[in-house]
Each structure stands twice: as structure tokens, then as C-alpha cells.
């Protein structure tokens, strides 16, 4: 048993691999040889983890991946516990469907990060692609719990169909952010692209950097929403984010919608004073 397991990429990945066997809680009962023998798919070819990574340590649910794994997809799929640090960029479908544990990416992440997650936390220090925190293709729900904190910007469909949970974006969000959310909270410190919170039923889209509010949302009031203050305070403390007091203590303009659905959702836009 060791403190942690380190997977060091042996050589740059020239083609994509499916690395959904890198699941920290599964490593807790495996030694080095067993971890190295876990399957990795390179196209239609079944390979082993040890074909791509040098593995040190075993029987630990704390895992560090070293190297540029932007072409390694599905890392931490279904993770239920432990911790994973990706020491660089990560590929798509990172932390899909996780139910617990902590995943941190020090660089960028590809599309579908945190898709269908229901617990745990995912932190991406830089940017993430499309559909962060959204659902799997065809699914009626996006993330149903847990927290995603992205330091940079995200692509389209961030948090789409979210049912519960918290998605924080430190930069901008692309089009259709918080699309059709059922509940939960999406906070964007930067700007949000076109058609925000389109067809959302409930849930909150909080925007500090500017957004074109759709006509299907109606202005309710300008106030200091206590849940935004609570969420931002929590995020600042838990993830050591430096959020300005003006955001935490500020006033927000509340719009109710989407009127094309049950209309119990909201867009809250920060009022710069």
C-alpha cells in the first residue's frame, strides 16, 4: 500500500485512447501489476494501462496522472471516491457520471467534463469544452449533484438539463448555457453567450459579466439574493477562489422564466454599482 498511485505518460499520445479504467477508488484494492493490466482501448485495439503509463504505487485511491493526456478520454468515469489530479490537460468525458471523490485538472479539459455526475467535485483550473456538467447523449438529465468549478471559460451547453448541483465558471460560457435546466445553479463570472437558460424549468443562472436576457424571461426585482451570497462564499472558502466583495455582497437583477415552460427558473444578473 502506498500514499498514492502515479501514472506517468511514457510518450506523447499520437492517437486517442479510451482510459476509463483510470478510476481512483478502483485502484484502492489493486497493486502495481493489476493496475498496469487494466484495459485501455486505442481505437479497436485493447491495450493495457502499462502500455502507455509508468505506474508507481498501488492500493491507494489517491491518483496523480502526469503528462499530456488531452487525448486520453473518459478518465475517472464513474468514480465513487478518492482523489485524482491530472497534472496537465485532460481529454473529453473526464469524470463522467462520478458519484463521489475529488478530481482536479491543472490544465484544460475536453468536452463533456462532469457529464451526468451525481456527486463529488470536479475542478478544472483552466478551460473546459462543450457540455460541461450536461447529460449523456439522449439523457433527460444533466448532472444531478456535486460541484464543478472551472477557472477559465467553457463551451456551449454548459450545465444543460442539470437537475441538481453547482457549476461555477470563472470565465465566459458559450451559447445555450444552462439550457433546459430542471434545477441546480450555474454561476458564470464572465459573459454568457446567446440563448441563456433556454427552456429552463427551474434552477438558477447567475451571471456577473453580462448576458442578453431572452424575452421569455420577465424582470422581477433587483435585490441581494441570499443563496448567491451563500454559494459564492462557500466557493471562495472551499476552492480558495478570489471573488470580489462586490459580487458576493452585490445586488442582482432577477428575471423569471423561461415562460415557454413552467417558468420557475431564474436568471440573476449582477448589477455593477
Amino acid at each position: 500500500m502506498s500514499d498514492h498511485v502515479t501514472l506517468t505518460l511514457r510518450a506523447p499520445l499520437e492517437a486517442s485512447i479510451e482510459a476509463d479504467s483510470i478510476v481512483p477508488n478502483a485502484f484502492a484494492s489493486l497493486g502495481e501489476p493489476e493496475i498496469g493490466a487494466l484495459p485501455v482501448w486505442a481505437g479497436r485495439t485493447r491495450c493495457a494501462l502499462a502500455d502507455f503509463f509508468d505506474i508507481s504505487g498501488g492500493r491507494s485511491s489517491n491518483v496523480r496522472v502526469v503528462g499530456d493526456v488531452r487525448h486520453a478520454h473518459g478518465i475517472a468515469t464513474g468514480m465513487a471516491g478518492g482523489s485524482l489530479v491530472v497534472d496537465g490537460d485532460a481529454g473529453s468525458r473526464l469524470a463522467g457520471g462520478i458519484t463521489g471523490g475529488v478530481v482536479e485538472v491543472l490544465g484544460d479539459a475536453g468536452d463533456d467534463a462532469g457529464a451526468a455526475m451525481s456527486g463529488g467535485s470536479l475542478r478544472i483550473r483552466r478551460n473546459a469544452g462543450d457540455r460541461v456538467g450536461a447529460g449523456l447523449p439522449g439523457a433527460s438529465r444533466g448532472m444531478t449533484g456535486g460541484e464543478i468549478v472551472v477557472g477559465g471559460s467553457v463551451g456551449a451547453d454548459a450545465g444543460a438539463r442539470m437537475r441538481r448541483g453547482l457549476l461555477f465558471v470563472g470565465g465566459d460560457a458559450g451559447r445555450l448555457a444552462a439550457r433546459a435546466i430542471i434545477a441546480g445553479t450555474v454561476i458564470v463570472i464572465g459573459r454568457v453567450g446567446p440563448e441563456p437558460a433556454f427552456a429552463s424549468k427551474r434552477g438558477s443562472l447567475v451571471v456577473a459579466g453580462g448576458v442578453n436576457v431572452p424575452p421569455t424571461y420577465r424582470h422581477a426585482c433587483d435585490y441581494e439574493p441570499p443563496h448567491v451570497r451563500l454559494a459564492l462564499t462557500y466557493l471562495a472558502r472551499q476552492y480558495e477562489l478570489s471573488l470580489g466583495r462586490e459580487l458576493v455582497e452585490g445586488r442582482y437583477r432577477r428575471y423569471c422564466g423561461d415562460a415557454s415552460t413552467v417558468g420557475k427558473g431564474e436568471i440573476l444578473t449582477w448589477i455593477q454599482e
Partner: protein
Amino acid sequence: MYVNGVFIDDTFAEAFPMRAARIVVTAVNERWAREAALKLTGFATSVIACKCEAAIERELEPRETPDARPGVSVLLFAMDTESLGKRLVERIGQTVLTCPTTSCFDGLPDADRRLTSGRALRVFGDGFQGSKVVGGDRFWRIPVMDGECLLQESFGVAKGIGGGNFIILGADTRRTLAAAEASVAAIANMPGIILPFPGGVARSGSKVGSRRYKSLAASTNDAYCPTLRPLTSSSLPDDVHSVLELVLDGLDEQSIQRAMRAGISAACLPGVRAITAGNYGGKLGPHHFPLRSIVGAHADGGARA
């Protein structure tokens, strides 16, 4: 045993198990947090007639509260979990929910047993309420006329202790009250402790039942009433003419011991003749706090100074 020339009686305070909740009230500023907390803890001196005992534990800095606003921590004690749940719903609903700008949070997040008082109160929102999960805890957003009231869904239940006490026997009212005030000041802001009586002090110490009125659950502690010295079997020395009691409720024995030690030491002022404690011969509750062992380190060595 004497402390600063004050006799410490060789007796013990007898306390009993209660159930406790810690409620954190925050508001736009200290004033409104305190206004809500004062109402929340109103009419909560004794379970005998108030159904619960409650008081402000301490004021909280913004860095100590979940929403980074000024806050007040309140402890509320009841005889059982069911009763505690009812009191929380009644009191939070009528005092915190009604008070401008307030939010209400659980102060016992590690407690396994939970009461879903916030969930019960959500229906005031008449269907317009909503909830948010932040940090794994659910909070209810109840629309009110100044915006929204944010209530945590569940509150932790702790196994608390009620009825810790000590009694100050003084030469006159003025100096006995000064000693009680010093005691309260020494205990103020100690974590896990409240003094539920007015200003932390009770003058109407009681005995169980009544000599004359059979339906009474409690009646005056005639043995400690100076005006009854010749009429009853008095427990008062001749030079005692005023008696005040501090009643302490705490989250654990250590908190009560720490507070009693500080309070008794502070009360040993000129004009105070003795410190004693209330007990029922060990028949009331399992928690016993012997005065002499609690204040031991502060004693004068057994001689009157």
C-alpha cells in the same frame, strides 16, 4: 474550602439530559442578527413552563458564518428530540423568518440526528419556495417581502445537559447581584454554554412540587428565601440576606464544568458569604458537578481569607 474568602459548599449541582440545537442567525448587520436572536430566545428560561430553554451563545464574526455576514449563535434545549423539533419550527418561523434580512443556519453540522425544521417551514412560501444545495446541505429560499429568507433544511441534534447551576449567597442584594453579574460576564461567549434566565441570573430558584398546592410542578425554594428564615427549615447562614442562582445549559459536561469554574471564581467577591448548588440528592439527573472539585485549583487552601 474557600475562594477569596468565600465558602464553597461541599455539595454538587445536579443536571439532567436534554436535547440541544445550535442555530446560527445572520443578517445584514449585527443589529438585525441580534434582534432576531433576542426574539428567538425570548420566553425560554425554563422547560417547566416555556417548553424549552434558549439563549444567545455568542456573537459571530462574518468569517465564522456560512454567508459571511454578522451573526449570532443561539443554543436551544428541550427535554426530547420531538419537543425540540416543534420549538425550532415555532420559534424560527415566528422570529427569524419574520425579521428583516435574516438567514438561518444549522450550527451542529456534524450531528448525526437531524431535524428538518427548515423543510417544515418552507411551505410558508405557498409553492413559490425553492431550494438550493450548497456544500452538500440543502437550503430553502422562501419568498418574503424584503426578498428571500434562506433557511437551512435540517438542524443537528446534540445530547445536551440542562440544569447545571450554582447559588450565590450574599450579605445584601446589591453585592450579591454584582457577584452574579461578574459571574455572567466570566461565562459570556464561552462555547457550548448558555445561561437561559434574564441577564443570566435567576432569583426564583425552585423546588420540585409544592407544600401547599398539589398541582404545581415547582414552587419557591423556601429554604433559600431570606424572608422565610424563621418560618421554614432554612438553609441560609445568619449573615446571608440575598441569594441568586445561575443556571447553565451546555452541550457537554466539559463545557458546564469550564463555565462553572469561571463563574464561581468570578463570583467570589466581597459581600459574598458562600457558594452552593442545587441538587435533589442525586435522584433528578445523572450529571453531577461537585463544586469543590470544579473550583479546586482556585481555592485558598481551606482557610477563610
